[in-house]
């Protein structure tokens, strides 16, 4: 089996007395989209910037494209595209000139116009960078990172500050990258973003990875208990299924066998001609799991 594109074991980073990353393990396989999901200050950017070569780790092992990210050589750098959380470009060059300038740094760049099309900036080809909107500048960031035709792409919070439609557009761009066969390492604090884009997600909180897996099963989401809530006028003879009354008279029960429980409940209700009012059946969303894992800091801006 091929070497993983990124392999991290026990990665640590301290700033003085503060430990921003406290020993994390991450493996990213070729062609995979991996998301590091966590609230602000959880250690996402520190982690990604160690892998990009901007910061030196204080402990643990790391390899990126089979190199130590602390000392990436030029040929390896040429295989990596980076979208930083915030970074600038010269405001007085046009979109095309900017991409062309960065292309020139790489041995096998992609054609300028092709890159512009991938990120959907064709209309703005000859516009100066200082005339672009925030979302367009972010797309330019992605275009620059793609210009050298990298195998591995780092995207550090690519859609933070976007409105919903801009985020949809950005996601489409990332999906285009997946279609190009790129390996993508994404950080985000949006659950839906991780769910929509990533094949595998690791949730980071306070410098530790607290859960890892595909979005559908992460944090035991697939095996977690289903919650059923309902109200009844007269609960006489209601089978005892472990329901507990909530404050407003609603009954709630949690089960690993929702089909059986629902069958018993509805059979009872039909027998008596009663109604299970306001019935809700739900499984924990990724957001619930995330809030639980990160101690309720989700979405904290």
């Amino acid at each position: 089996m091929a070497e993983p594109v990124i392999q991290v074991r026990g990665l640590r980073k301290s700033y003085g007395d503060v430990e921003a990353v406290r020993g994390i393990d991450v493996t990213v396989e070729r062609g995979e989209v991996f998301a590091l999901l966590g609230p602000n200050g959880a250690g996402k950017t520190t982690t990604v910037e160690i892998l990009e070569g901007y910061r030196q780790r204080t402990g643990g092992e790391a390899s990126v494209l089979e190199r130590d990210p602390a000392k990436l050589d030029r040929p390896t750098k040429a295989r990596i595209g980076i979208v930083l959380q915030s970074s600038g470009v010269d405001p007085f060059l046009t979109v095309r000139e900017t991409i062309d300038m960065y292309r020139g740094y790489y041995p096998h760049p992609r054609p300028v116009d092709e890159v512009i099309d991938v990120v959907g900036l064709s209309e703005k080809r000859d516009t100066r960078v200082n005339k672009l909107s925030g979302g367009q500048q972010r797309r330019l960031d992605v275009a620059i990172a793609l210009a050298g035709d990298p195998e591995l792409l780092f995207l550090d919070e690519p859609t933070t500050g976007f409105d919903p439609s801009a985020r949809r557009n950005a996601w489409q761009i990332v999906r285009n990258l997946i279609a190009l066969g790129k390996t993508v390492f994404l950080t985000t604090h949006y659950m839906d973003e991780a769910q929509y884009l990533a094949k595998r997600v690791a949730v980071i909180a306070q410098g530790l990875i607290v859960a890892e897996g595909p979005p559908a099963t992460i944090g035991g989401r697939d095996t977690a208990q289903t919650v059923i809530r309902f109200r009844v006028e007269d609960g006489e003879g209601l089978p005892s299924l472990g329901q507990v009354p909530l404050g407003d008279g609603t009954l709630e029960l949690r089960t690993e066998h929702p089909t059986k429980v629902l069958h018993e409940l509805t059979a009872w209700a039909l027998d008596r001609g009663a109604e299970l009012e306001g019935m809700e059946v739900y499984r924990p969303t990724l957001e619930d799991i995330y809030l639980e894992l990160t101690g309720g800091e989700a979405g904290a801006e």
Partner: protein
Amino acid sequence: MSDVALALRQVRYTNKAFWRNPGSAFFTFAFPLMFLVIFTSLLGSGTIEVAPGVFIKQSTYYVAAMSAFAVITASYTNIAISVVFQRDAGILKRTKGTPLPGWAYMGGRVLHVLIVAILLVIITSAFGVAFYGADVPSGVLLLKFAAVVVVGAMSFAALGLATTSIVPNPDAAPPVVNAIILPLLFLSGIFIPFGVDTPEWIRTVARIFPVKHFADAMRAGFYGAPFEFLWRDVLIVAIWGLAGLILAARFFTWEPRK
């Protein structure tokens, strides 16, 4: 592409962006000419005693002085302020993540500064010839003069790079840069010529820093006699430039300061 070709390519883009920034381009070019006009209008009819018994016209004096000022503005001031801006805007950080070697990027900027400096010297001289009847150097003198311009522009550019390491953010760049360069300009005879009665302590301070040596070499390279062209002046400027390069290599940062 070879690294040198990469650096040259960088010059092209730097140049493109430079001319599209009207504020920066205008002031880089307008300041020296503006000062030349102001100083010669204020003082142009007089003469300066540059050595005991040796007098020259003020207007002639200022053509060379403003050429020196133009080179310093284009190299030191321009590099220090614009590189801090680029650092703070995250442009340098992005560049650092690409395979482009850092020196090729900075080399491109320094070469661009050299081109701008040469252009400025040509314009200032042409202005001096057209309006003040200044003599332009020729022959060996021209070669010496060219050497001074090249060594000066590159050395002051290197010092500008070194200065960025003590500038915390772009707002602080102009005050810090001016606080360093303005006193040295006044202590160099560029704005106010040294006369026979200039105090000794000013001469001593001026001898330590590179600005006076550069101004002297520019003047001697421009006029020849009665000024004495000393390679020692050029060497001192170059040593300062080398020191700037070493400091920049040691303390320069590619990431915005928090």
